[in-house]
C-alpha cells in the first residue's frame, strides 16, 4: 500500500485542504492586486478631477500643462476614433481570415496561417511602433496625403472625413497599426467559436441544398456570432489599452481629430508621453486620465462578462 499513501484518507484530507487554501490564496491575491491598483490610481488622480470639476475635466477641450489647464476630451475622442478605425479595418479582415481557417482552407493551409497569426500576436508592440514610424508614416505622408489632396478632397463629405493635409502621423497610421495588432485576437477567438458550432448545423444546411458560402454566412456565422462579438470586444480592449505603438505614430498633438489624416493623442499615449517630467498637478492629471481609462476598460470587461453569462460559444480566450 505504500504507493497509495498519497491517496490514503488522512493524507488526502490534508492535501485537499492545501489545494483549497492555495486556490483561495490565488483568487484573493488577484482581487487584492486589482483593488490596490484601482485604489492607488483613484487616490492619486482624484484631486485634479475635483479641482477642475468632473464636467470640465472630461468635456473641456484644452490640454495646456504650462497654464495648468487639464481637460481631456481630445484624448477621449482620440482613443475612440483610433479604436473605431482599427476595428473597422480588423473586423472584416479578421472575420474573413477566421472563416477561411475554420471552414474553407484545407488542413495544410491552416498549418501555415495559424502559426503566422500566432507569431503576429507575439511581436512586441514597440516593434509595431518602429515599423509604423519608419515605414507607415512616411508612406502615408508621401503617397496617401497627396492622393487624398488631389483625388478625394473635392468630394463633399468623404473629402472632409479623410482630410487633405497631414504629415503622416495621426489617426490613420495609429488605426492601421492597431488593426494589425488586434487581428490575432479577433481571428483566434472567432475561429474557435466558428469551430464550436455543432456539425449537425453544417450538415443540415448543406443537406437542404445550401452552397458552402450560404452555409458559412447564413448558418455558421450567426450561430457563432456571440463568440465573434466577444473576440471583437477583447480586441477593442487591446486597442484602447495599447500605448507604445500608438505613441510613436499618432503625432500626439492634443487636438480633437477632425479627419483621418489629422493627428491625435489617445489617453494611454497622453499618460506615457508626459509622464517623465510631470510634477504636481500635471502628474495628478495624468493619473486622472488613468482613472477614465480604467473606467472605460472596466465597462468593456463588464460587457464581455455579461455576454459570457449568456453561454457564449467561446472555447478559449
Amino acid at each position, binding site marked *: 500500500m505504500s504507493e497509495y499513501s498519497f491517496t490514503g484518507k488522512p493524507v488526502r484530507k490534508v492535501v485537499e485542504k492545501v*489545494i483549497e487554501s*492555495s486556490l483561495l490564496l490565488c483568487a484573493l491575491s488577484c482581487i*487584492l492586486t486589482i483593488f490596490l491598483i484601482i485604489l492607488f490610481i483613484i487616490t492619486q488622480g482624484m484631486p485634479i478631477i475635483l479641482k477642475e470639476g468632473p464636467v470640465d475635466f472630461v468635456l473641456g477641450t484644452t490640454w495646456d500643462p504650462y497654464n495648468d489647464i487639464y481637460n481631456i476630451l481630445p484624448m477621449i475622442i482620440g482613443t475612440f476614433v483610433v479604436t473605431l478605425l482599427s476595428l473597422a479595418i480588423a473586423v472584416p479582415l479578421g472575420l474573413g481570415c477566421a472563416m477561411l481557417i475554420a471552414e474553407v482552407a484545407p488542413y495544410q493551409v491552416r498549418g501555415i496561417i495559424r502559426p503566422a497569426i500566432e507569431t503576429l500576436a507575439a511581436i512586441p508592440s514597440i516593434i509595431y511602433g518602429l515599423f509604423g514610424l519608419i515605414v507607415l508614416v512616411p508612406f502615408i505622408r508621401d503617397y496617401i496625403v497627396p492622393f487624398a489632396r488631389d483625388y478625394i478632397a473635392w468630394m463633399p463629405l468623404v473629402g472632409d472625413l479623410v482630410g487633405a493635409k497631414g504629415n503622416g502621423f495621426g489617426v490613420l497610421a495609429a488605426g492601421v497599426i492597431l488593426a494589425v495588432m488586434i487581428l490575432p485576437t479577433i481571428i483566434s477567438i472567432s475561429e474557435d467559436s466558428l469551430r464550436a458550432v455543432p456539425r449537425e448545423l453544417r450538415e443540415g444546411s448543406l443537406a437542404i441544398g445550401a452552397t458552402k458560402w450560404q452555409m458559412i454566412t447564413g448558418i455558421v456565422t450567426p450561430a457563432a456570432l456571440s463568440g465573434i462579438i466577444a473576440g471583437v470586444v477583447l480586441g477593442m480592449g487591446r486597442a484602447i489599452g495599447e500605448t507604445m505603438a500608438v505613441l510613436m505614430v499618432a503625432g500626439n498633438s492634443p487636438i480633437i481629430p477632425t479627419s483621418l489624416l489629422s493627428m491625435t493623442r489617445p489617453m494611454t499615449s497622453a499618460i506615457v*508621453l508626459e509622464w517623465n517630467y510631470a510634477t504636481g498637478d500635471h502628474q495628478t492629471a495624468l493619473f486622472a486620465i488613468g482613472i477614465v481609462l480604467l473606467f472605460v476598460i472596466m465597462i468593456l470587461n463588464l460587457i464581455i462578462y455579461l455576454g459570457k453569462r449568456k453561454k457564449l460559444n467561446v472555447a478559449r480566450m
Partner: protein
Amino acid sequence: MLESFYPVTAIIFMTVLSMVFILFTACFYIFYISLLSVHRLYLTPHSLTNRYKVNKQMLNKKSLVAFLTIAIIGIAAMALGCTSPTPTATPLPNASPTAAPVSGTIKVVGSTSVQPYATDLSDKFTEKYPNAIAQVSGGGSGAGIKAAQDGTAQIGMSSRELTQAEKDSGLKETVIAYDGIAIVVNNANAVSDLTTAQIKDIFAGNITNWKDVGGSDAAITVVTREAGSGTRTAFQEIVMGKVNITTGAVVQSSTGGITQTVAGDRNAIGYISYGSLDNSVKALKVNGVVPSTSTIKDKTYKIQRPFLYVTKGEPTDAVARAFIAFTLSPEGQAILASGKLVTV
C-alpha cells in the same frame, strides 16, 4: 516629485510582487498536484505494475526539484527586491587629497532646470565629503534668486541671467554650465539659416510653409517635445516667451523621437539639446551663427541659457564654497557634461 509618494509606491510594488510570487508558487503547486492526480486517475487501475511505481517516483523527484529551484529563485528575487538599492558607484580615487574636511548642511534652491544636475552633483559631493550635505530643491529661477538674496538658501540656482538690478543688490553669479538648444531640420532641407523671430513664428504656427523662409514650397512639419520636458521648457523660455507652441505640432517624448522624425521627414523642424546633436539631422544657423561649443560660450549663438549659482556676495559658508568648487572641478563638470550641457 516621486519622493513624495515613494513609500506608497514601494509598499504597493512589494505587495504586488509578493502577490505575483504567491500566485506563481500556488499555480505551480496546483500544476504539480494536478499532474499527480491525472496520473493517478488514469493509472491507478494498473497501479500495481512496476512501471507505475517508477513513473510516479520519477515524477515526484522531477517536480520536487523543479519546485524547489523555482521557490529558491523566487525567494532570492524577493530578498533582492527587499534590500534597499545601495549606490553601486565605486568610490572615486580621491583626486584631491587636500580636500579639507567640511561639515554641515546647505540649501540649494531654484531653477527646476538646474535642479536635476544639482541633485546629481549633491550626491557625488556627499560621497566625497561625507559630513557635508547640500539639500537641493526646486521652485524656479526667481525663487532661487530671492532665496539667495534673503539668505534662506546659501546658493540659489538660476537658468537665466541676473538682471542689472539683481547684480546691483550684491548678488554674485557663478556660471556652472551652458544649456544650448539646436534647431534641427532634415539633411535635405535647403534652408540653413533662420532668425529667432522666424523660428518663433514657425513654432507658433504663424509660418506654415518653407517658401516663406526661403525654402521650397512645402508645408512645415513642426516637431516638439512634450510639455514638462526640460528642453521644451528651455525652448519655451528662450524662443517662444509667452507664445504657445502650436497645437498642430507633432509631439515626441524623447530626443531620439525628434531626430527620428526630423530625419525621416524632409519638411520637419524640431529642437534638441545641443549635446545630443548628431549627423542624422542638420542644425540650423540662428541669426547666422552656427551652434558650437565656442559660440554657445561666447553667447553669439542665441538659443542658449546659462546655468548659474547665485550667492549673496562671496559665500562665507565653507560647505557652500566647497560645493561651488566641486561643481567647477573637472569631476563636477564631467557630471554636467554627461547631462548634455556645455561646460564652462
